[in-house]
């Protein structure tokens, strides 16, 4: 099966600083990949490279077989990028944001899908509200609704649960599972390791821009030589020596 996302030897430098180095992984349709790592490990840079926002210094990113650098428009048509801070247009209402997204991605039946999304994300009744009138959590939900509207093959989420209330978190998790069940590939970056363990089929641990572990939690456990323990225990066991090494 052709992977929805394929990352080959991805590298990204900021001047002399190497933020991400030699990342290699793939995500199949219906698979959820968790991207975890300490602060400054390169998670957001990786997601930005996958979304085509930052061009890679070396290596390539293929979405549905399209190279993000060589064929950016067909590749981006397949993806949705949801940053940690919702980036909305202050003079478009909730409903107009959906209309805007529909035109960009040429979604023919968007009204029905839009209503369903607003219902699911508890934004029904807020159609005429401007972002300035919404709480942070509601903005986050609107950003998610816009991201899901065109039924993307690949969803990139940076800290997707930030700002959501407990019910919102529950619904968000359900929505992500449904997307995956419907065949979408998901890459989510989060510090909430129990969430990653619960939702993700595979996990990629980054430390100082390098891929230090990749696979299912079981496979990572085996790589680390651990017999039991949660993803959190594994994360600490794997990343703490790397951090100490960097301090020395």
């Amino acid at each position, binding site marked *: 099966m052709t992977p929805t996302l394929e990352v080959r030897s991805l590298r990204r430098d900021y001047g002399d600083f190497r933020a991400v180095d030699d990342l290699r992984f793939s995500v199949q349709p219906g698979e959820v990949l968790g991207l975890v790592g300490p602060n400054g490990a390169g998670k957001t840079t990786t997601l930005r490279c996958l979304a085509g926002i930052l061009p890679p210094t070396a290596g390539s990113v293929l979405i549905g077989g399209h190279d993000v650098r060589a064929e950016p428009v067909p590749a981006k048509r397949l993806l949705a990028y949801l940053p940690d801070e919702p980036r909305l247009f202050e003079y478009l209402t909730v409903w107009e944001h959906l209309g805007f*997204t529909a035109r960009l991605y040429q979604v023919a039946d968007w009204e029905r899908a839009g209503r369903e999304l607003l219902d699911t994300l508890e934004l029904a009744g807020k159609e005429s*509200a401007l972002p300035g009138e919404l709480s942070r959590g509601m903005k986050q939900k609107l950003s998610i609704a816009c991201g899901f509207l065109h039924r993307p093959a690949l969803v990139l989420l940076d800290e997707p649960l930030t700002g959501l209330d407990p019910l919102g978190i529950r619904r968000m998790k359900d929505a992500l599972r449904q997307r995956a069940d419907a065949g979408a590939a998901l890459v989510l970056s989060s510090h909430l390791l129990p969430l990653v363990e619960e939702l993700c089929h595979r996990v990629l641990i980054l430390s100082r821009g390098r891929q230090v572990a990749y696979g299912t939690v079981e496979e990572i456990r085996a790589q680390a030589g651990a017999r039991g323990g949660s993803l959190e225990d594994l994360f600490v066991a794997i990343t703490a020596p790397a951090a100490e090494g960097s301090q020395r």
Partner: protein
Amino acid sequence: MSLVAAGTFLVLRTAKNRVRRALQKLREPRYLVGAAAMTLYLWSLLARPARPSTAPVLPEALGPLAHLALEVGLTAVGAMTVVGAWTLGRDRLSFSFTDAEVTWLLSGPVSRSAILRYKVAVGMLRTLLSAVLVGLVFRRGLASRSAPFFLATWAGFAMVWLHAAGASLVRLRWQARGRSAPLRAGLGALLLLGLAGAAASAFHGAGPLPAFQPGRDGLPAGELSEWLGRWASSPGMDVLLVPARAFVDAALARSAADAARPLVVLGLFLALLVAWVLLLDAPFEEAALASAERRAQLEARRRRHGIRLPRVGRAAALGAQGPPELALTWKNWLALRRVHGARLGFLLAAVGLGLGFTVWGAVQARAGGGVDLRLLGAILAACFAGLTVLFGPLSLRTDLRSDLRRLDVLRALPLSGVQVVRGELLAPLLLLAGTETALLVLALGLSAATHVAGFGLLPRAAWTAGLLLLLPAATASVLVVQNAAALVFPSLLVDDEEHAPRGVEAAGTRLLNLGATLVLLLVGFVPAAVAGILAGAGARAVGLGALAPTVACAAAAGVLAAELVPAVRWMGRGLERLDPTTA
């Protein structure tokens, strides 16, 4: 560490880090050029040699009457400020707290009086900076000695600040005791009575005003000055004028010795005010929180270009099919409507009023009044259409200049760079071109029935037809140049959501941007002008003299449009290469 020490650390480190950040930015040549331009401009304004100390200053040149009038005027303004501070408005703090100050100071292990000392110190620092600025700007026109003028200005600003702060704190204490309204009313009445009594007593003591005698040259300045002197030296007024007199004497002193005594007087007033404010024990915490919220609201409103969050009306629906970049155009069109809705309404009302006035004038003229306001209206409409070419794109910034701050969002869209640029520019262009078209048609319609020697209706129609093509093309050129500049200087020319780009380099870059826009437009317009002249001459040569203006303008518009194609492509490539992490 005491709060004063912590506050000093905060202020100094903030200043140091801002300077360091600005200097780091100057490593990039483009920002260095901006800073150099602004430095040169400031130098040309401020650093020219001051007037020699022996030259007479303005109030001296006007004589003792002006000196006295200045004292009385300042006292009147001061009296109004005092009465206003104690009686007008709501009971709230005159100085503001930031969100960070509320979080760190109000929840920190520091006393209320320590917080007040910190705020007073910061307030004094701000008045000091204001005094430096005023001193630099006005030192040549008003004073011969910079130091006394600067010290007097600082003392004046500080006294006003301290008095407002003290009054607001006392009012908060009254409010906490539930007695604000009667105490304010009582004090206000007392103050007004006292001021009126002092003024009336002074009028009585000064005797009758010198009579103005017809036939004499000008006003009796000498007699008036003497009368005003008697009025000002009467017992009540003599006391009231002390602060203003000390300020004027110090600010306009010819020597340090002359300034010493009035400066001591100002210093005593300042010390008394500082002591009074610091001894006040008012519960300002709730007011501080309110001031932080008010400040945040004002900041949010400023980010929306000073306009309240608009009511959302019906908008034309956007179909899901068709060129995707038109989604950006539609989005910008809605933003323009919602940002400038009120102003556009005002503009339309003004045009409507102008039109009605013109029609009225036309009716008057037909009735034999001889006033032809139609032509005036036509000329105004045509001029306004011309001005829209330059000032329209400078004021309507709902395009890349506002959206580049969301570069990561733009870059994640399934659009090429050229598509994004096209989509972004189209909405302001359509609005401005529509305005220009309406104004030109209005101008032609208004002037249609008027005979203008040497400029008949046919040439007017020919020019109008040509300008209908040329003005939108020229407007598109200005929009492209402005947006291209924002791509080159994103951190200085892009409207930031959180705060406007500040600093010497930002101001300098804006200055350069305006200059560069004019130069680029001139360069871009030269081939268009040449093409227009040649086409017009060709039209005349083949016997189409009447249509020559239309042909010339059409040719010029065509050349401008041809220039825009590679420019937009270049911008599209630039947008794709722009690094969101450094922009």
